[in-house]
């Protein structure tokens, strides 16, 4: 047994430039480490992770005949693999190289930073523990397992589709799960996208259509992940597929059933509450799959055992009221989480009157109104009287950068407000007065600053301030707001026809539940948490489960695409091995897993 042999342990203490050396006495730490039982060699290094630093470690391993190594430096999430590779080159098993984080107590900006005395005591104790731990550590027995050549993508928005198509093109079997009846996600409902002002469906539709016909892709709409067990290479998935009440093989998407359906309801999903749909509906013209779906909650047959007009009207006998929820079992090698985002509900910010005044809407609702396939066919009409507004006020950062709501910047709101301002001025109502009330305009992407300048040149009024309260004029339903404009040093009183709120981007509903099913962590804002925000932004705490797009944090389409390609690359790197070696306990863990949190 490894435990019986006398160990030769080396301790390497990193300065990390001044990040560690600036906050703790390294010489004292070296001296105290020399006193630890089993430690035969201690040295400090300016940058242990640098090429010189790694060479020094390798030389020490060979010259001092070290068989275990502790490196006191930074977060293991950042560099453990770096040092394990370094040790392996010098002949030490990766499991016998440990990295401990002493930098968190010394680095400027770290929430754990303490004074130098405390940093010394904490670092000393951590090194002692790490030495003891690694001296008693045994080699983990590895088991070779087969890697399933398939991937589960959770979320059929642009990020999930991009990742899924990439992997399907590489030859893997890809299951794309979407909880709504159609794929395409939020992007399909945006009409135009910045900074090119491309028509969103025009650039998305080829992807959705390709995903629908791709021989390696299995699209499961109206479906949600119910349970996940296993480990990288061998995840067992149970998917709940809700009934569409339509035989998808028979439905041609002709729409005859929709015309006859007598039950009309507000469409809160595809029209963002700005329009209506029938109880049987096709989400929108370019929906994939273009198949009808019955909303059982509002269907007269399910409510009162009446009607069935759609059944009588359907030319292909596709209506199937007997469909039941099904459980589908899948086995995959990797999982990609691309569940996107939701728009913050601004009723919580009562000062803006959303939900109380009908002429206060959100930017996402505005996007639906501007869409030529949307509820008003592209006409910008006030909700209260259906007339075209003569003025609009857009208010930025609603629920974002706000300690009482969400502390973070939602990243995309400045740009979509500019986009909508441009569209309205250039394409819809050229004479309209548009105001944008903002804290800062954040336009940092490629081509974004030019886009901002162009919007200003179109005569849009920018006011650097947010109104504190909005009042509705009872007769006209116009909205009156007061806002301080520091640029001219005056309090402005504006009467406007329509107010549009740029609401925060928040984690999509169900994110917490999915994190529990997948055993992956969430960050402080409720988005899926990456291993490291800079160097490992799409990996999670579970090997083989990756995150991309707005599920990881607010981001625009180009960044979502980049992450989608990154997760596809990570998945490919693992799947192409066909067999991998894993610690035996990971393979057995499922059987052991009982109780706890």
């Amino acid at each position, binding site marked *: *047994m490894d*435990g*019986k042999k006398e160990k030769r342990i080396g301790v390497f203490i990193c300065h990390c430039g001044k990040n560690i050396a600036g906050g703790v006495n390294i010489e004292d730490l070296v001296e105290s480490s020399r006193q630890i039982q089993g430690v035969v060699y201690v040295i400090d290094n300016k940058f242990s992770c640098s090429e010189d630093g790694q060479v020094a470690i390798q030389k020490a391993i060979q010259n001092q005949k070290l068989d275990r190594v502790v490196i006191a430096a930074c*977060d*293991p*999430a950042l560099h*453990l693999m770096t040092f394990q590779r370094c040790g392996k080159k010098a002949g030490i098993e990766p*499991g016998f190289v440990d990295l401990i984080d002493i930098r968190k107590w010394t680095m400027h900006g770290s929430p754990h930073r303490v004074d130098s005395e405390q940093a010394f005591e904490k670092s000393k104790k951590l090194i002692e*523990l790490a030495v*003891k*731990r*690694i001296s*008693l*550590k*045994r*080699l*983990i027995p590895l088991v070779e397992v087969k890697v399933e050549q398939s991937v589960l993508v959770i979320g059929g928005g642009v990020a999930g589709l991009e990742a899924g198509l990439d992997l399907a093109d590489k030859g893997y079997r890809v299951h794309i799960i979407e909880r709504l009846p159609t794929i395409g996600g939020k992007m399909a409902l945006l009409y135009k996208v910045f900074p090119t002002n491309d028509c969103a469906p025009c650039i998305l539709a080829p992807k959705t259509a390709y995903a629908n016909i791709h021989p390696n892709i299995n699209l499961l709409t109206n479906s949600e992940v119910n349970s996940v067990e296993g*480990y990288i290479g061998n995840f067992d998935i149970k998917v709940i597929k809700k009934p569409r009440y339509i035989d998808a093989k028979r439905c041609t998407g002709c729409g005859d059933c929709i015309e006859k359906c007598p039950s009309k309801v507000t469409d809160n999903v595809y029209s963002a509450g700005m329009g209506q749909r029938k109880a049987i509906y096709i989400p929108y013209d370019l929906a994939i799959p273009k198949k009808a779906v019955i909303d059982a909650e509002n269907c007269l047959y399910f409510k009162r055992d009446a009607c069935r007009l759609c059944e009588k009207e359907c030319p292909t006998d596709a209506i199937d009221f007997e469909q039941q929820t099904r459980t589908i079992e899948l086995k995959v090698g990797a999982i990609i989480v691309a569940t996107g985002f939701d728009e913050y509900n601004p009723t919580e910010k009562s000062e803006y009157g959303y939900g109380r005044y009908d002429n206060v809407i959100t930017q996402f609702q505005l996007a639906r109104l501007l869409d030529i396939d949307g509820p008003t066919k592209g006409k910008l009409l006030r909700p209260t009287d259906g007339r075209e507004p003569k003025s609009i006020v857009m208010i930025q950062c609603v629920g974002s950068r706000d300690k009482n709501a969400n502390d973070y910047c939602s990243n995309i709101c400045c740009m979509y407000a500019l986009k909508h301002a441009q569209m309205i001025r250039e394409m819809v109502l050229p004479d309209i007065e548009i105001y944008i009330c903002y804290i800062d305009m954040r336009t940092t992407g490629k081509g974004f600053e030019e886009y901002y300048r162009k919007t200003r040149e179109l005569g849009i009024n920018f006011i650097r301030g947010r109104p504190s309260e909005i009042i509705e004029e009872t007769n006209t339903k116009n909205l009156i707001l007061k806002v301080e404009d520091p640029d001219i040093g005056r309090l402005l009183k504006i009467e406007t026809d329509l107010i549009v709120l740029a609401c925060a981007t928040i984690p999509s509903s169900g994110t917490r539940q999915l994190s529990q099913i997948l*055993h992956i*962590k969430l960050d402080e804002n409720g988005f899926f948490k990456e*291993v490291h925000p800079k160097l490992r932004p799409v990996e999670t*705490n*579970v*090997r083989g489960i990756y995150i991309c797009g707005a599920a990881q944090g607010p981001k625009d389409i180009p960044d979502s695409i980049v992450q989608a390609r990154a997760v596809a690359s990570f998945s490919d790197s693992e799947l192409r091995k066909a067999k991998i070696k*894993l*610690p035996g*306990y*990971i393979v057995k*863990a499922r059987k*052991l*897993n*009982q*109780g*706890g*949190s």
Partner: protein
Amino acid sequence: MEEVYVEDFMSPGCVGCPAVKAMLEELSIEFEDKLIVEEVDITVDTTRATQYGIMSVPALAINGILKFVGVPSKEELKKAILEEIEG
């Protein structure tokens, strides 16, 4: 007689973790200085559990090997520690 290093993976909201902690405290008295217990709060040290592939707590690694996920019986835990002590 070998020493034994136990990594006790826990989190503040975990239902089963206090029971495991209590067992380890009792066994620490029984085994005296042969048993070294390190409590690893997975909400503070977010990477150690990842290295072991731990997906839920409580979980116990003994001398670098993940032995239990969930709450073991005291007898199971004692047996696993004894195996290490006796080599």
